[in-house]
């Protein structure tokens, strides 16, 4: 090490800490260090319901520490705008948190990714022009910054579209143009070119807005044509992009806490999307660029033609009366119908009569990972009654009645039988093995995969055509008077 070195370090430290003194800067990164540890613990504790809430506390404390540490760094400067921003942010965030119904969780997640990505993109942009003025931007920094902003902006629009679709602001009918993929690739290509250009000529500051625009456009055209059923996967993917972009910003700002938090966020997004793809037997490329060709889909008439038997709430009540073991299979429809509380009543009354009741949770039931668990937990159903697919599938054989509430694709036997169907190979809950299957939905219309479901025409299946909530309420009522 050469003798110039230590002096440089001091400067470097001061540099790290912007306008702050070296001492203050140590305080700051010390707080960041602790925050990083707390964030990690937070995720470790989340692994089990018993410790999960402690995890949230840890995360909150870490966040508070980091923010306070940062504010300390700028005693001198007036941060009127910082405070204004934080107040406004809280005013937007709090109501969302308080009044948002649990059924809106998927949309909310998408929206928050949009916000996160927006913040990343904005900060990146600000830094570019800042550097640019002072003319201090080397090629490596520029390259990282460019990728950071690109990821940020495409995640922003992408997540917004996802939000729009889940919130049904954008009709899910919106499908891609014939040569959608071509468009996507050319947009992406152009964006990358712009990024490379900036890396070589960091000072060409007119290319920068172009980069941002291309990123935004790519995000739009990538997500717009994707079917609602694939949204959750896309959301998780975007989640990992948002994380990566935060991490890259950490690179640019010499902020290790940012690098870590971003990496943690990114890996969670990655893992969740992998889990979902596995559970749907799809590949990333297939989710992002694959289009389902309607031709392959068998027509509903062949499947259902006169074979569908429908039943009344009373019939179902009678079935349940005799049942020793009942398995409830919730799906997206339960969320739409907000039927979880009615389901809880059903659960209570059956348990009170000594019937064994369990819930079969398919990894991709609903519209996001763990969606059904949250709804049922909201309805105060103990989580040890919620069984994962692999655990419950073998038990359908000893099940008297399987009640499918607003689930469709996740119980569609075509996944096993028809290799050409869009859900071919997706592992399903084989409710068919139960003595009797009761399917609660409003009509024979398909689920998100848009295909008919032979289960509805099976001999041991009874359809209860009704809104999920009303149907269950009626069944419970019927059970009560029967008693």
């Amino acid at each position, binding site marked *: 090490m050469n003798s110039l070195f230590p002096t440089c370090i001091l400067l470097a430290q001061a540099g790290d800490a912007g306008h702050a003194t070296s001492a203050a800067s140590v305080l700051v990164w010390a707080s960041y260090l602790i925050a990083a540890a707390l964030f990690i613990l937070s995720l470790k504790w989340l692994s089990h319901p018993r410790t999960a*809430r402690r995890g949230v506390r840890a995360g909150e404390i870490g966040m508070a520490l980091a923010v306070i540490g940062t504010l300390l760094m700028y005693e001198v400067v007036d941060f009127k705008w910082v405070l204004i*921003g934080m107040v406004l942010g809280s005013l937007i965030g709090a109501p969302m948190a308080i009044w948002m119904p649990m059924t809106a969780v998927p949309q909310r*997640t998408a929206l928050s990714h949009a916000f996160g990505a927006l*913040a990343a993109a904005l900060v990146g942009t600000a830094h570019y022009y800042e550097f640019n003025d002072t003319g201090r931007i080397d090629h490596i920094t520029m390259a990282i910054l460019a990728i950071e902003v690109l990821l940020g902006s495409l995640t922003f629009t992408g997540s917004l579209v996802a939000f729009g679709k889940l919130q049904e602001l954008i009709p899910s009918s919106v499908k891609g143009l014939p040569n959608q993929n071509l468009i996507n690739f050319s947009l992406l290509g152009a964006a990358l070119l712009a990024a490379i250009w900036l890396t070589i000529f960091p000072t060409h500051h007119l290319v920068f807005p172009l980069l941002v625009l291309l990123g935004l456009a790519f995000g739009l055209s990538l997500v717009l044509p994707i079917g609602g059923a694939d949204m959750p996967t896309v959301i998780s993917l975007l989640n990992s992009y948002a994380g990566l972009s935060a991490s890259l910003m950490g690179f640019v700002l010499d902020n290790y806490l940012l690098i870590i938090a971003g990496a943690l966020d990114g*890996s969670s997004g990655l893992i*969740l999307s992998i889990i979902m793809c596995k559970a749907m037997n799809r590949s990333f490329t297939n989710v992002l660029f694959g289009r389902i060709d309607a031709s392959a889909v068998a027509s509903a008439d062949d499947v259902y033609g006169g074979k569908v038997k429908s039943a009344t709430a009373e019939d179902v009540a009678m079935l349940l009366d005799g049942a020793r073991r009942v398995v409830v299979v919730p799906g997206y429809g339960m969320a739409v119908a907000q039927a979880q509380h009615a389901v809880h009543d059903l659960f209570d009354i059956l348990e009170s009569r000594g019937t064994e009741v369990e819930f079969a949770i398919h990894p991709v039931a609903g519209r*996001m990972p763990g969606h059904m668990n949250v709804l049922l937990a909201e309805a105060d159903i*103990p989580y040890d009654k919620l069984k994962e697919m692999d655990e419950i599938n073998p038990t359908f054989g000893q099940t008297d009645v399987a009640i499918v509430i607003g689930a469709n694709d996740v119980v569609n036997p075509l996944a096993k039988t028809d290799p050409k169907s869009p859900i071919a190979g997706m592992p399903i809950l084989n409710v068919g093995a139960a003595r009797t299957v009761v399917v609660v939905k409003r009509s024979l219309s398909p689920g998100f995969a848009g295909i008919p479901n032979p289960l509805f025409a099976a001999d041991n299946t009874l359809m209860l055509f009704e809104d999920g909530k009303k149907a269950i309420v009626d069944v419970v009522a019927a059970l009560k008077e029967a008693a």
Partner: protein
Amino acid sequence: MTDLEPKLFVFLLATFLGLEVIRRVSPLLHTPLMSLTNAISAIVVVAAIQVTAEGHSNFSTFLGTLAVIAATTNIVGGFWITDRMLKMFRRESSRRE
């Protein structure tokens, strides 16, 4: 930007750690997981604060303020909703607190 080396090491380790830890999260809690990681990654707020406070130009102050708003929204919303969800999970035995 100071030199790349330590950052790549930190990134490498954090990614490995993230994959390790998150693979252990029970599927039961995947939704809270999403909102928690999301809240955590709202740590970009510190960068936003930096930009805003340093305020080299009105422009960057403006962008910074927007960023602070967006990030704070995620912090407040993220942690709060996660906690709301987790409060609901209870075992057969223990009653909900």
